[in-house]
């Protein structure tokens, strides 16, 4: 595990203590040890990017933070108190809002009902659902993200993958209190929507929230992250501050260095327009993998 | 090549009866029981009712439901449909009596059959045809004592059925060393194995009393499978059972003449409508219990073959 100097200094001297702090946390599913000895600090006003290969344990890590799974060893403290969340409700009550990779939407429920699930707005003495308000807010928030969902009464199961993703993100951002955890939020999103989400993440940070941002896209990570944690086979392989790493280094770290080198060389040799080619327009194709993700 | 001995071709009997049909105006009678569909006993009751209906120029509407509340509602439908008479069983008098009273109040004559010997009068019915289940059970108990049986099981094929429970209770009154066994009436092989296991468990049992004819036939098998030497007695009859008594595999049957119950319940309504008669003159008419055993089985054999005994 590589912890850069500057980060170690900061950890010791930073004015803000971590809101969520994991120390040597381990988690196993039956005989699969998905996480081992993971240490992570989420601070107010900071974006912590968790990166890593497929199956490295990123989702497992954030499921612990958001109370979906309990951990087997180590300690997690939230606001300085050691905690074992027994349900996501407890995490939410501690101000931790999460966008799950598998989305956590009820497919048969309508868009607005999903948006407000668990945080329903009620009115009047009988606590009747304030449908109109909820629909209006859901509509506003989704419009802000730049996606068009024609009918808020539509069941979520009928929406496109990206539309569903946007609902989950919009909801978490709208209800996020202290910590915002996002598991690959931009994976299914278009260029446009990705940009909006990144902007939201930065805004959340500026508003003083601690953000945990999981992504496979080093460009996205480097664009907004303050501090990067790379997981490899369930262990922390790198934990560093933005100032101590360049985008190239980060990309290398994520993909396992040497392997990527070999691969990008191979891809570089590929001629994209090889077979069919409009008459008389041949020419060299620029396609360096490591530059454009 | 495919033809076979036995089967329908051997059934050379002409349909018995035919007879004359009454020329009284056609009337509609509802016949409402607490029977589940497909029960052999109630099949005989129904045949009796249909025979009377055919003779009396009556349109018979047969229906039944084992749930008290539903049976009560069937009585209500008969009132709604303004039938000319209702024949009903009062196995669950608390549930059904209220609607019987309503029918009487609406001017519809009611006869009661099978269950309800205590309550038919209070409900306002004109007549009752049946047997007191408990007395029938006691008769069977006396029989066991008289034969010198040591220990018996009483096989109940429908859990919580009032009539069946009363029979076993009556049996116990006169023959205390009896144990109840529950089987599922709609599962014949399962019923057999349950009886088999009971006989394997308690080797002292020397008499099996079933409460319906098909279960006696199943008991014959169970006795054989278990290697027990228990004898079998039963309530109620059907064609197969009469054969079994003749063969000697079943000792006796307590007969309450279900055909007669159905027949009289309908016929009395017709009589009442056309001539103001009541059978039994205000007293319950008992159709049983009587015993059928090897000595008198020949007398009913012929009728059993017709499916009316």
């Amino acid at each position, binding site marked *: 595990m590589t912890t850069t100097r500057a980060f170690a200094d900061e950890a010791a001297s930073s004015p803000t203590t971590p809101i969520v702090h994991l120390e040597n946390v381990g988690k196993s599913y039956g005989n699969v040890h998905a996480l081992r000895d993971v240490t992570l600090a989420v601070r107010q006003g900071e974006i912590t990017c968790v990166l890593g290969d497929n199956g490295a344990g990123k989702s497992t890590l954030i499921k612990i933070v958001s109370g979906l799974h309990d951990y087997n060893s180590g300690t997690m403290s939230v606001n300085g108190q050691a905690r074992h969340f027994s349900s996501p409700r407890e995490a939410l*009550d501690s101000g931790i809002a999460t966008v799950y990779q598998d989305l956590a939407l009820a497919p048969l429920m309508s868009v607005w009902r999903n948006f407000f699930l668990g945080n329903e707005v009620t009115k009047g003495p009988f606590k009747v659902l304030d449908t109109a308000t909820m629909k209006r807010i859901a509509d506003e928030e989704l419009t802000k993200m730049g996606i068009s969902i024609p009918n808020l009464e539509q069941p979520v199961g009928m929406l496109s993958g990206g539309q569903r993703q946007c609902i989950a993100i919009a909801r978490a951002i709208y209800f996020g209190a202290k910590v915002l955890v996002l598991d690959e939020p931009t994976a299914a999103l278009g260029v446009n929507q990705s940009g*909006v989400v990144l902007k939201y993440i930065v805004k959340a940070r500026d508003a003083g929230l601690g953000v945990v941002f999981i992504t496979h896209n080093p460009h996205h990570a480097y664009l907004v992250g303050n501090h990067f944690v790379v997981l490899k086979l369930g262990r922390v392989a790198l934990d560093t501050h933005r100032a101590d790493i360049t985008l190239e280094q980060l990309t290398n770290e994520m993909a396992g260095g040497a392997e990527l080198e070999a691969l990008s060389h191979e891809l570089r040799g590929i001629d994209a327009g090889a077979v069919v080619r409009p008459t008389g327009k041949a020419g060299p194709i620029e396609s360096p993998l490591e530059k454009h993700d | 090549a495919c033809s076979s001995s036995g089967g329908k071709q051997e059934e050379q009997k002409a349909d018995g009866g035919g007879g004359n049909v009454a020329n009284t105006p056609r009337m509609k009678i509802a016949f409402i029981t607490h029977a589940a569909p497909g029960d052999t006993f109630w099949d005989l009751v129904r045949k009796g009712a249909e025979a009377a209906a055919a003779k009396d120029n009556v349109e018979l509407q047969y229906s*039944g439901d084992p749930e008290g509340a539903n049976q009560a509602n069937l009585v209500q439908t008969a009132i709604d449909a303004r039938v000319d008479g209702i024949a009903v069983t009062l196995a669950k008098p608390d549930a059904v009596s209220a609607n019987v009273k309503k029918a009487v109040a609406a001017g519809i004559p009611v006869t009661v059959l099978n269950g309800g010997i205590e309550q038919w009068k209070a409900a306002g019915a004109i007549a009752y045809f049946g047997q007191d289940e408990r007395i029938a059970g006691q008769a069977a108990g006396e029989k066991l004592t008289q034969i010198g049986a040591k220990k018996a099981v009483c096989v109940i094929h429908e859990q919580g059925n009032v009539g069946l429970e009363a029979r076993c209770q009556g049996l116990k009154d006169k023959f205390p060393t009896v144990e109840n066994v529950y089987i599922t009436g709609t599962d014949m092989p399962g019923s057999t194995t349950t009886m088999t296991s009971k006989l394997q468990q308690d080797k002292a049992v020397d008499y099996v009393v079933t409460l319906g004819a098909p279960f006696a036939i199943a008991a014959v098998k169970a006795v054989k499978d278990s290697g027990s030497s228990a004898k079998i007695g039963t309530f109620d009859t059907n064609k197969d059972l009469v054969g079994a008594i003749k063969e000697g595999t079943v000792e006796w049957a307590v007969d309450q003449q279900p055909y007669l119950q159905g027949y009289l319940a309908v016929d009395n309504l017709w009589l009442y409508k056309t001539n103001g008669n009541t059978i039994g003159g205000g007293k319950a008419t008992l159709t049983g219990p009587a015993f059928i055993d090897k000595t008198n089985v020949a007398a009913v054999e012929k009728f059993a073959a017709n499916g009316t005994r």
Partner: protein
Amino acid sequence: MASTLVAPPATDDRVSRRSLGARLLSRPEIGSLVGAAVILVFFLVVAPPFREITTTGTILYQAALIGMMAVPVALLMVGGEFDLSAGVAVTTAGLTGGLFAYQFSVNVWVGVLVALVVAIGVGAFNGWLLMRTGLPSFLVTLGTFFILQGLNLGVTRILSGTVSSNSIRDMDGFSSAQAVFASEFVVKFRILGIGFGPLTIKILVIWWILFVVLASWVLLRTKIGNWIFAVGGDAAAARAVGVPVKKVKIGLFMTVGFFAWFSGMHLLFSQSSVQSGEGVGKEFIYIIAAVVGGCLLTGGYGSIAGSAVGALIFGMTQLGVVYAGWNADWFRAFLGLMLLLATIVNLVVKNRADLR
């Protein structure tokens, strides 16, 4: 979190406005309503007594007997669970009330309260065991189904010596309790100058309608209702956004208990005693009513009004066959055909609606 960024979507013209009719038709209960209408017209044609207003009360009562329990069963199904013990729990509640009041010679209202506690307790036990073990509700409630069936008989026989509870007709409080749970009244009314009636309405029908309205309101207009849809649609997702899944499910089972109590009290006070062997098999009738009314067996979708329509379809068919005077031998076959017919009509209507 305010944001000034508004990226106006290019006007999306892909959605054609759906007519009010089409939108109405795609509600879960409307399909079954059309099914019910078909059945109604059918029997109006073939069964003359069906046309008389007096029979309406009987049919409504038959429907209410099923529909009362179909309400919580539908709620439970929307919440993604089954309760196979619902049928015998009604009997348990009735027996408890009757036996307790009689054996301890107390005012029947005490028995009524004890029955309430027992019935809700049974529901809570079901829910608790389900949540504790994580077994499917089919298995857990099957266990309680058998257990209750055994207890109904065993306890009743010990206490009353027979297989039904003792009659409590002449005990204190019986008449007031009967007025609440099992009375009836006659109405006559005039429409367009034509007098209708007399129509005998059982109070159970009124209660049923009340409970249907109340439960519909809870399901559609409250937070709890939202949660019920969510735990049935995707329990993991619901848990992830902080819905108290266990509490909701246990609450649903307790609701079944409450309604079992109410139905049991109706049974007790309309008959003054309860047969210990009754109720077996009714659990499926309730489920049928809910499913015919549009509830998904897999949870997350359905309606209470639909369950009422389902009960109506079932009740109409049950009695319609009798009113039509058909041979009782074929009763079940008719029932099956009608059920298939109603659900297929339901389906066709829904597919049509979705296409518009």
